[in-house]
């Protein structure tokens, strides 16, 4: 029951260098990293393929220089990819006329930036209303709408302030409010919390999840912080040297990392935060008494207290399919203790 694809990125390349333009033409096979290097080019994004579904939080994770920022800018066509297609609701952004692209950006896309990118000469209210002003919406209407989103991100009362009068966290709330003002369908967040203190960062992540629970946007979220990715993502794409090396749910990443590089990231992640009851359960009908039921999609972290407190196992329920297995105290304790003899 997969949702429809919102953004489909096919074979996208971004090469930097003088000879970048003709380099990919007339090639039978994909150029290797060595060939690109030999041609004096830098392969910032190499053959990226991702499909982002309606309403999902898709995180692109990579260390600095891995090409994640370049990729998201290709997806938004802030920079022109060297080759490939980016289909937004089935239409290729890269071959679209400027006028049409402007229309889509005005109505259907929003973006939040790492360093907030607030306009220094405008107040909070004017900043948030700015995208509406650009569309030519009248003052009364756009300010009413702006007040709504400012309220939504918890900044009511600060409308007349200038960005420089706000803390970093508050500034990013303005950035978020501004990107939501037009009611976008596709929401890009480019390392939105990286410039914030760790405590504020956590608070903003919670805020972000709260907003998403309300709004159900399709989200492309860039981060270099694996913990953040695990916490927020429905699916994660991991990038290294311009290549997407794995696209998977957090749980799949932890259970079966595609390479040593990915495994290195997942090693210090507490398993309880990632694994679901479905992964840990003993499948098949439950014999004997149970202490209660947990949902198959529940994370171990969230059910641990209940399961550990009980002598009896819990039944694992998967929506319409009913009880599909059971989960016991022993299995949960092993996960919590970090004993890894299971996959």
């Amino acid at each position, binding site marked *: 029951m997969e949702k429809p694809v919102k953004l489909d990125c096919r074979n996208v390349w971004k090469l930097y260098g003088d000879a970048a333009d003709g380099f990919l033409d007339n090639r039978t096979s994909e150029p290797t990293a060595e060939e690109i290097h030999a041609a004096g080019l830098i392969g910032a994004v190499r053959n990226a393929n991702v499909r982002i579904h309606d309403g999902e939080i898709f995180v692109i994770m990579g260390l600095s220089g891995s090409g994640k920022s370049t990729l998201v800018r290709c997806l938004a066509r802030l920079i022109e990819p060297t080759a490939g297609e980016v289909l937004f609701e089935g239409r290729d952004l890269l071959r679209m006329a400027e006028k049409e692209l402007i229309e889509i950006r005005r109505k259907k896309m929003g*973006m939040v930036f790492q360093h*907030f990118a607030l306009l*220094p000469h405008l107040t909070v209210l004017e900043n948030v209303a700015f995208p509406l002003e650009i569309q030519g919406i009248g003052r009364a209407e756009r300010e009413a709408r702006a007040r709504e989103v400012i309220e939504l991100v918890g900044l009511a009362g600060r409308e007349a302030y*200038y960005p420089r009068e706000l803390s970093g966290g508050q500034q990013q709330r303005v950035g978020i409010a501004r990107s939501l003002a037009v009611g976008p369908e596709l929401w890009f967040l480019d390392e939105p919390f990286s410039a914030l203190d760790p405590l504020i960062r956590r608070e903003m992540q919670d805020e972000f999840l709260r907003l998403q629970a309300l709004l159900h946007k399709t989200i492309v979220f860039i981060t270099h912080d694996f913990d953040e990715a695990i916490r927020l993502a429905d699916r994660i794409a991991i990038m290294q040297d311009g290549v997407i090396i794995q696209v998977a749910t957090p749980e799949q990443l932890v259970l079966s990392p595609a390479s040593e590089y990915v495994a290195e990231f997942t090693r210090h992640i507490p398993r309880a935060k990632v694994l679901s009851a479905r992964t840990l359960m003993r499948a098949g009908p439950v014999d004997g008494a149970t202490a209660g039921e947990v949902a198959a999609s529940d994370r171990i972290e969230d059910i641990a207290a209940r399961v550990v407190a009980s002598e009896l196992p819990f039944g694992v329920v998967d929506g319409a399919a009913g009880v599909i297995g059971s989960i016991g105290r022993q299995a949960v304790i092993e996960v919590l203790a970090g004993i890894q003899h299971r996959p």
Partner: protein
Amino acid sequence: MSRLIAILTREGRWFWPVLFAATWLVSTYGRDAARALDARWLVKYPAAWRLPLKGEISTAMDWLVEEANFGLFTFRELTRGISWLIEIPYDFARSALIEGFERGQGSNAVEIAPSLSWIAVIVAVVAMGHYARNWRLAALVGGCFAYLVIFGQWDSAMVTLASVLIAVPIGAAGGLLLGIAAYRWPLFDRILLPVLDLMQTVPVFAYLVPILFLFGFNAVAALVATIIYAMPPMIRMTTLALRTVPDEIREFGVMTGCSRRQLIWKVLVPSAAPGLMVGVNQVIMLTLNMVIIASMIGAGGLGYDVLTSLRRLDIGTALEAGIAIVVMAIALDRLSQAFAERARTEMHDPALSAGWIRRHRWLSTVVAVAAATTLAGLLVPAVQTYPEPMMITTGPFWSDLVRYINVNFFDQFEAFKTFLLWYFLLPVKRFLGGVPWTWGIGVMTLVGWRFGGWRLALLTGGLSLFIAVNGLWPKAMITVYLCGVSVVIASAIGIPLGVLSASNERANRIVGAFIDTLQTLPSFVYLIPVVMLFRVGDFAAMIAVVLYALAPAVRYAAHGVRNIDPQMIEAGIVSGCTRWQLLRRIKLPLAMPEILLGLNQTIMLALSMLVITALVGTRGLGQEVYIALTKADSGRGIIAGLSVAFIAIIADRILSASARHARARLGLE
């Protein structure tokens, strides 16, 4: 021979001493040697070989004014159109500030409305001061303008202010538009850059000449010259400010769906506002500087007062007008800086929900005062025009003071002057004056080649050749001599001051304030005290040039020393350096690239000032430009102006190249 050249160029140690010794020999004995060889063309450029460039430029200008036709309109109509466009707001500003509005012509004119009263103008500047920063600034600018009225400089000052009020918006807006164009179209930027370089090195008088020719001897010509002079820094600041807007802000604009126009005007330009305001501040200061200079081609105002009283040797009056210029410069500078600062730090206004009048207290006050004083002025003239009996004049006091100084300290000043002239200025003059053009071009080429390879050699050689083929070599050498002497003295004073202020906080404050003031003053003002004490001539000119060109030497040296990695100095200290060793072995060498850049700026300022000192009787290229100006000979003026610019460009390229060398050697790049 080739071995000799190889030794000369590779072995850095010998290059300069050998070159200097050879040049000295040529300078001293060259003339006799050439005579003995019967080859006088070696030392004196033959008149028959001169390029007829001067005449051709003059002819071309004549053609432009008399005959040029663009189909729809002639060139003359174009210049008249521009005059008309500038004249209307200018007349309005003059009427509003000083002359009153009149209907009709000449003696039939009927006044229909008076100008703003002096009280209204002062209240307006106080209001701006308070709005832009605080009461202290308001008091400062209010005090400055009160000085103008009390000391009887009001009328001239308002004429000058009217020119500034017209030239600044046009210059700033023009600079902004050109800067945006250069930002958007890289090709335009590449074309514009060398033009800007040239415009900033050609001395101002040089383009007064063609402008005078095109627009006539009047205030509009002065305004056009002022605008052209003040625009380049605004263009540069605009492209720079736009380029330094963070990428994310630009991306935000694109992602919001801005059209190109919206992106520029709603996102980039406002975000770049603090940088742009710095540009506007520069435009204001340059405008004031140029309005003063341009007073000699019909702008009138304070500059005209200074010039006429200097010509009469009426030191008191000149000094009073000069102080008025200084006072006005300080007021305008502080005010525009405060506005720039405000754009950067403005906070939200708690009175946002209050009524219109409360929110715009100052605007309402100014309008009310203007209306009230205008009405009251009809009954009590003193409200409209500051009454003459209440004016204070310090003219006689200054005249007496100068007389006293000249009577009692004449010997000391004279001894000082003679000493420097005899042991420094004249030998340098003799040395440079004796260098034959052939040798000089050779030396410039060689030096260019040493620092920047054949490319730079071609440039420096070619530019010096240009000066020679136009028959200006001897005059150019006089300019080089005066400039060189002034730069050496300015550096000898400025670099130690800079090093001192970098290492001592108190010295820094005092020197900083001194230098700030020096930099705010229009170049014209420097002439007054110098002429007072040393009369006219090379020496007086040199002192004026040294004062004018001192600032960059101090600034760059201080900056260079302050920017040295503190670990280097610590390394020196733990190695047991004495303070003197620390300075000589560590600080000075490491600050050398910056000091060289400062030297570069010092040379630029010195050259531009040298043209102005032609007013007090220096010879050389400045005099040539000045003569062209009085004769309205465009060709002559342009060629002489270009020659000054070329000297500046040669110095600039060689010094920049050597600064790059120094940086590379120190591993700073």
